[in-house]
């Protein structure tokens, strides 16, 4: 029976398997020739299965394909990595050439080594990325380490046309930082903070504060753009901003120059009574990528001019530490023959290290134990005392930096006007709080822990210690402003086993040029620093570079901290010719995952989602509704569509442009001369801007970012018809 279907695969297989024609075989064959087997035997399923499978193959390309960003695996070679090559062997000719070069350019062997440690061949990417604050330029800088090349700036508080920030697009974000009756279009950026997960950088967000106006900004590291600015409603100056708790639940903003809360008025005589400092806990909603103002709160602090803060981690998770330098309550008045601030704030031997229990503060906030200032919840000093949220510990003489060691066990306070760093043990602090070891209270009633009960060590380093960073070998690095040097010293406790030297001892000082402020080691304020590189952020360059008139750049000096002991050479001087960078965050490059194009065409970077109104190819039009005109435009190499837009004088124009590009670096600009508009359209981006066409005339618009061979031809005319007189 099976033989009958010999022409089918089933029959052929059957014929192969069953030979002979015995009774048993026949029965077996019959059983096999069941209806299902019969169907299979006909061989029809093969084209049928093929048909149904092929239908899905046909159907797929018929759907409009969603233009996805190309997956990493499709790239043939990993961009930025070095090619795999065999080991380099220098020939005698190579040596001779290097020798001659060294003599011609007067370079020592150390110079050549320094150059070799920092040089990157074309196409090779840097190992670390540094996000440096741009000081009073109101921007951030992205710099590659060790090459120290400036990769780009990120506009934050200050409009910047190349990035299309504040000239049509980005104004919504800038407006978030305004105060009633005043546009604020610059900021004094000081201390950036990268978002952390479990105390380690996760490369997702960047935060930065504005000292001048007490504001905070959030930067999304998927596209390196500022997404939000929040204005602190209760005060007008901050400094300790920003610092993050180990899982970035809160972004901390510590105030600096005390003022009466909520922009109230009070004279200098009322300083102690009416002026207040603060630390604000801004709640960060990671899913939305925004600060949640409704879940944020501040603590009222005495007007001691708080300085810097740092969040505890691991052993000190749940505490934050801050210092201050005007516990003297000096009010200055050199014009009134009083001691100036520079003297008045340095009268006392000790100021106060602030120790704040985050959990208790959060609990007080959630329990409603606050007063509202300008609608913002402020936990008053009485509550801080009663709920054991705030404690003080004495710290020598107008200190500056407060830095928690990677294991969270120690807090290092740099003396500034005292040549020591004072190291506090966080376990001792916790014990002292629990045992109520406070010998006194300050004039506001806040308990002061006994210095000897919480102090672990004091290390004399030199003149003007400011900030401390850490590496992976148990060393700490402190900047010495007056000595103009970086001090390497040893940590104790469980760090003693990592280095050969005695604990809590100065190891070496390397001079830097000149007047170092902050310093930044690779991942130096996380739970696992990498060591390797240290940047000395010098305030004065003086003679280091060719003078550019009276206003000179700052000098970022790269130091090699890979070798232990006394070897800590300066490798490279890098001028920063904009603003005055203060502090930075250095993160391993492979922790960052920036997009190179936006995920889909029509992407709104502000919402980080598709903009439903964004015109796609074929959807370009101009819609008129009385005085309201809406333009839907697309941009692609090398034309805008439409190339002619006509409106009437006085019309309210809403203009949408979508970049239809999908290729890395195919960015277009868009400007309308005479209307102060300039946009930057990255591949896939959808932008919307609004203005009133209040000037009649003909205004060319064109692409401002070089895009293609026909970039000059990528233009159009915006015509504003004069109103009939």
């Amino acid at each position: 029976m099976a033989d009958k279907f010999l022409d089918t695969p089933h029959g052929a297989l059957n014929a192969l398997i069953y030979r002979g024609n015995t009774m048993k075989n026949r029965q077996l064959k019959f059983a096999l020739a069941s209806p299902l087997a019969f169907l299979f035997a006909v061989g029809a399923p093969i084209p049928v299965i093929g048909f149904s499978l092929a239908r899905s193959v046909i159907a797929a390309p018929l759907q409009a394909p969603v233009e996805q960003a190309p997956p990493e695996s499709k790239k043939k070679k990993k961009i930025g990595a070095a090619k795999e090559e065999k080991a380099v062997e220098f020939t005698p000719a190579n040596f001779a050439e290097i020798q001659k070069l060294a003599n011609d350019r007067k370079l020592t062997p150390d110079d050549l080594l320094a150059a070799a440690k920092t040089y990157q061949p074309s196409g090779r990417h840097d190992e670390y990325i540094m996000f440096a604050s741009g000081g009073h330029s109101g921007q951030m800088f992205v710099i590659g380490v060790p090459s120290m090349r400036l990769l780009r700036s990120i506009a934050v508080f200050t409009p910047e046309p190349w990035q299309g920030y504040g000239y049509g697009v980005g104004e919504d974000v800038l407006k978030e930082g305004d105060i009633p009756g005043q546009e604020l279009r610059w900021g004094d950026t000081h201390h950036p903070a990268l978002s952390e997960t479990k105390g380690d950088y996760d490369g997702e967000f960047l935060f930065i504060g504005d000292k001048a106006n007490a504001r905070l900004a959030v930067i999304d590291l998927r596209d390196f753009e500022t997404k939000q600015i929040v204005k602190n409603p209760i005060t007008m100056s901050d400094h300790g901003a920003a610092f993050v708790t180990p899982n970035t639940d809160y972004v901390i903003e510590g105030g600096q120059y005390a003022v009466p809360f909520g922009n109230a008025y009070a004279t200098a005589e009322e300083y102690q009574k009416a002026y207040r400092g603060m630390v604000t806990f801004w709640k960060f909603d990671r899913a939305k990528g925004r600060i949640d103002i409704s879940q944020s709160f501040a603590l009222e602090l005495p007007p001691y001019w708080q300085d810097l803060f740092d969040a505890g981690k691991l052993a000190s998770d749940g505490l934050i530490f801050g210092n201050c330098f005007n516990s003297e309550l000096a009010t200055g008045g050199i014009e009134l023959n009083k001691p100036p601030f520079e003297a008045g704030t340095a009268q006392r031997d000790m100021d106060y290290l602030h120790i704040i229990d985050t959990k208790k503060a959060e609990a007080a906030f959630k329990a409603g134990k606050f007063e509202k200032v300008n609608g913002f919840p402020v936990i008053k000093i009485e509550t801080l005392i009663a709920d054991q949220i705030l404690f003080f510990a004495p710290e020598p003489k107008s200190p500056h930096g407060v830095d928690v060691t990677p294991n969270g066990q120690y807090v290092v306070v740099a003396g500034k006007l005292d040549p020591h760093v004072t190291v506090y043990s966080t376990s001792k602090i916790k014990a002292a709080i629990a045992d109520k070891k406070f010998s006194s209270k300050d004039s506001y009633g806040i308990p002061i822990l006994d210095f000897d009960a919480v102090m672990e060590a004091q290390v004399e380093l030199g003149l003007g210690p400011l900030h401390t960073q850490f590496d992976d070998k148990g060393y700490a690095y402190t900047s010495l402003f007056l000595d103009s040097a970086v001090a390497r010293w040893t940590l104790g406790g469980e760090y003693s086993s990592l280095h050969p030297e005695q604990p809590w001892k100065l190891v070496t000082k390397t001079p830097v040029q000149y007047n170092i402020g902050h310093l930044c080691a690779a991942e130096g304020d996380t739970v696992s620093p990498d060591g390797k590189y240290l940047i000395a952020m010098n305030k004065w360059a003086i003679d280091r570079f060719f003078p550019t008139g009276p206003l000179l750049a700052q000098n970022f000096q790269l130091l090699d901290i890979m070798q232990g002991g006394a070897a800590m050479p300066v490798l490279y001087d890098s001028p920063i010719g904009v603003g005055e960078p203060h502090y930075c965050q250095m993160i391993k490059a492979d922790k960052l995952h920036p997009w190179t194009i936006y995920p889909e065409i029509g992407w709104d970077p502000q919402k980080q989602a598709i903009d439903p109104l964004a015109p796609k190819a074929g959807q370009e039009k101009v819609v008129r509704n009385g005085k309201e005109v809406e333009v839907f435009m697309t941009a692609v190499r090398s034309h805008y569509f439409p190339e002619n837009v006509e409106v009437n004088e006085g019309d309210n124009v809403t203009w949408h442009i979508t970049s239809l590009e999908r290729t890395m670096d195919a960015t277009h600009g868009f400007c309308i001369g005479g209307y102060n508009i300039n946009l930057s359209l990255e591949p896939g981006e959808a932008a919307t801007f609004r203005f009133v066409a209040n000037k009649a005339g003909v205004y060319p618009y064109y692409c401002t970012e070089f895009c293609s061979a026909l970039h000059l031809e990528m233009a159009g005319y915006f015509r504003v018809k004069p109103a009939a007189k």
Partner: protein
Amino acid sequence: MTSVSFISNILGPRVSSNDLLGRRMHFVIPTIMLSLARLALIISVFLPYWHMTLEAPQYPNGLELTAYVNHLEGDVREIDGLNHYIGMRKLNDAASLERALGVWMVIAMVVLIEMAGLVHTKWALLLVIPALLFPVGFLVDLQFWLYSHGHNLDPAAPLSSSVKPFVPPALGVGTIGQFRTIASAEAGWYFACVSSLFVAAALFFHRRAFKPLFDKMQIAKAGG
């Protein structure tokens, strides 16, 4: 018996139990080979048939173009964008009929091969000719379209004076402007070739198995 002889006249001699004795494999092999040919063709639909890489200074990772039987993948959008400068038509305008019918053609070939298994005369050859010629036909058609696109350039295009009509080779290396094109056949095409080979082999075994039966039938007809 009448129905059997009617089928035998049209589709060739049927296999009786006697014929199988000692020659089972003769009749099994062509069937298996044709099945494998069908399978190879079906698999080839899901695999890329042809690939072109374009190299230029400003594309450090190159541009890729992959052709399947029914669609194109890769940097189609970017290549179209570049081509508009020289007045070349869009890539998806090329061979649109071939690609729309592509999968149906393969299915048709599979069904024809299926039927060829049932035909025990020399007319089986006719049924499998499309499958035999498919790989070569694919490349010829591809080269035609490459020629067509490279020659029907819009004279109003911006770079029309810099770039003259050209033919990108369907296999191997070519140059156009600052681009170097490297084209090759891919897995799908090789599967189609394998299918053709199986079909050719099947024809040989088919003839070995059925020619004797056919001759016997002719003698019986002449005699009876």
